[in-house]
C-alpha cells in the first residue's frame, strides 16, 4: 500500500503539492544570554561615552568609577554597615505590613461587612504618597526605627490587602462547597481550603509589596537615618556624588531582583501543586 501511495505521489496525474506551513510564532522561547549581553553592551556604551566625553560627567558617572566606589564601600566595611540597618528595616516593616495586610485581606474576603467597611478605606489610602506624610510619621512614631518600620509597613499594607482579598475571592467556590458538603467546620474550610487556595495570589501580591518596600526604603531613611542604603543614596544625591548615587541605586536594584528571585523560589517550593 505504501508503494501505491508513493507511486501515486511521484506520478501526479493530478498535482500533489505539500501542505503549506502557516503555524509557529507567538510562543516566546527563552534566550538567557541576551539579557546578559544587553546589560554588558549598555555598560560598555556608558563607559565609552563617559571616557570619550560625549556623555558629560554631569549626566552619567563612569561605570568603572561606580564599580570602584562599590569596591571601596565593600572593603571599608561600610557596605554592611549600610546594608544591615536597611535589611532590618525592610524585614521588620514588610513583615508587619504584610502580616497585617494578609490578615485584613482575609477578613475582607470572608466577611461582607468587613469588606464593605474596609475596601473603600483601603482604596482611599492607596493613592496617598507616603513621602507626603513624612512629617506626620515623625510625630506619630518618632525619629527612631519606629517611623521607618511604620512607613514601610504602611506602604506594603495596602497592596497586600488588595492582593489578598482578590486571592480569597478567587478561591474556587466548588472547593468550598465541597468542604461544606462533607460537613467540614467553618474554621476547617478557612484553614484547609481558603488559605491554601489563596496562597498563589498572596505570594504574587507579595512580589509587588516587597518591590514597594524597597522603593520606600529611601523615603523611610529620609527620617533621620545615619546608616542605610537609602540614607547613603540621599547623602550621595545631596552631595551630587553620582558614583555613590549609582552604586546605591545598583544595590537597591540588585536587592529587588534578589527578593523577586527568592519569592520565585518560595513559589516553586510551596506552590508545586499548581499545574
Amino acid at each position: 500500500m505504501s508503494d501505491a501511495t508513493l507511486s501515486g505521489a511521484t506520478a501526479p496525474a493530478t498535482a500533489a503539492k505539500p501542505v503549506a506551513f502557516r503555524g509557529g510564532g507567538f510562543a516566546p522561547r527563552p534566550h538567557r544570554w541576551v539579557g546578559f549581553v544587553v546589560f554588558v553592551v549598555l555598560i560598555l556604551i556608558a563607559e565609552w561615552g563617559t571616557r570619550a566625553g560625549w556623555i558629560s560627567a554631569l549626566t552619567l558617572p563612569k561605570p568603572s568609577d561606580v564599580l570602584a566606589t562599590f569596591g571601596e564601600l565593600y572593603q571599608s566595611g561600610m557596605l554592611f554597615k549600610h546594608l544591615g540597618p536597611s535589611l532590618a528595616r525592610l524585614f521588620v516593616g514588610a513583615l508587619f505590613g504584610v502580616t497585617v495586610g494578609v490578615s485584613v485581606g482575609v477578613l475582607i474576603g470572608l466577611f461582607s461587612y468587613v469588606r464593605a467597611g474596609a475596601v473603600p478605606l483601603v482604596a482611599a489610602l492607596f493613592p496617598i504618597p507616603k513621602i507626603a506624610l513624612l512629617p506626620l510619621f515623625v510625630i506619630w512614631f518618632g525619629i527612631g526605627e519606629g517611623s521607618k518600620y511604620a512607613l514601610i509597613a504602611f506602604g506594603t499594607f495596602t497592596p497586600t490587602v488588595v492582593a489578598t482579598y482578590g486571592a480569597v475571592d478567587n478561591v474556587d467556590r466548588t472547593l468550598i462547597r465541597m468542604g461544606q458538603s462533607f460537613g467540614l467546620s467553618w474554621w476547617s474550610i478557612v484553614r484547609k481550603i481558603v488559605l491554601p487556595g489563596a496562597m498563589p495570589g498572596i505570594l504574587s501580591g507579595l512580589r509587588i509589596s516587597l518591590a514597594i518596600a524597597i522603593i520606600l526604603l529611601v523615603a523611610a531613611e529620609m527620617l533621620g537615618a545615619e546608616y542605610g542604603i537609602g540614607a547613603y543614596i540621599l547623602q550621595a544625591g545631596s552631595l551630587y556624588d553620582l558614583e555613590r548615587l549609582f552604586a546605591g541605586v545598583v544595590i537597591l536594584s540588585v536587592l529587588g531582583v534578589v527578593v523577586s528571585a527568592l519569592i520565585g523560589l518560595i513559589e516553586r517550593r510551596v506552590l508545586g501543586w499548581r499545574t
Partner: protein
Amino acid sequence: MDIRLDGISHSYDGVAVMNDITLDIPAGRIVCIVGPSGCGKSTLLRFIGGLERPGQGRISQIGEPPEGCLNPLTYIFQDFALLPWRTVEGNISLVLEDHGIKGARAREIIGDVLARTKLTDFAKALPKQLSGGMKQRVAIARALAVNPAVMLMDEPLSALDSQTRELLMDDLISLWSRQPFTAVYVTHNLNEAVRLGHQIVVLSRRPGRIQEVVTIDKPLDQRQFGDPDLDEKQKYLWQLMRDEARAADAELINV
C-alpha cells in the same frame, strides 16, 4: 435512609427555576435526573444536600443513616473538586480529619477505599499528575470514605472523554453491585441514565417540573453496552426531550 422531596419550588431573583417537585428517593436505588440545560437539576441537588434552601417545599430524610456513616449526604462533583495541594491520600483524609478520624484508623479507611477504586498505587500522587478519569475515581473514593447514606452526583462523568466515561460507568456498576448504595444522579447523558438508573426522572424546561418518571427494572449488572432494551428506553427518552433540548440550547443568555 430514604429521601423525600415535597412540593419543591424555587425562584432566583424572580425567575422561577423549578415548580412543585415531589419525589421519593428509595434506599439502595439510583435515581437519575435528566432534563434540558438550565432546568434546575443542579439546584435541586443542592437542595437535597442541604447546601441551599428551597423557596417552598420540604426535603426530609426518612429513617436513620446506616451504622458508621460520617456524612449521610455526600456529593460527587462534575469537576472533581479535589484540593490540588493535597495528594490523593490527603484529599481523602481531609474529610476524615473533621470527624476526628486520624492515624491508624484513617489509614485503614483510606487503604480500603483506594483498593475499591483501584487507586492503591496512586496514593501519593498529586491531582495535577492524574488524568480526568483518575481524578473522578479519587473523588469517588473520598465519597466512599465517609460511608454515605446517599450519594449526590452532579454530572459526575460529563467532564470526561467518552472512553473514560465508559470505563467509569463500569466501575460505578461494579461498586454498586458489590454493595448497593443510594444515589441521585444528575446527567445530560441519556446513555448514562439508562445504564445506571433504576428510575429516570425527566424534567421539563425551566421552570423545571417533573415530566415523567421512567423505571428500568433490568438489574444493573446485566445492562450491556448496546443492549436493545436500553436503546429502546434511550430512544424514548430522547424523543421526550429533543424539542425542549433544542429550545433550551437556542436561548440567549442574559449576562
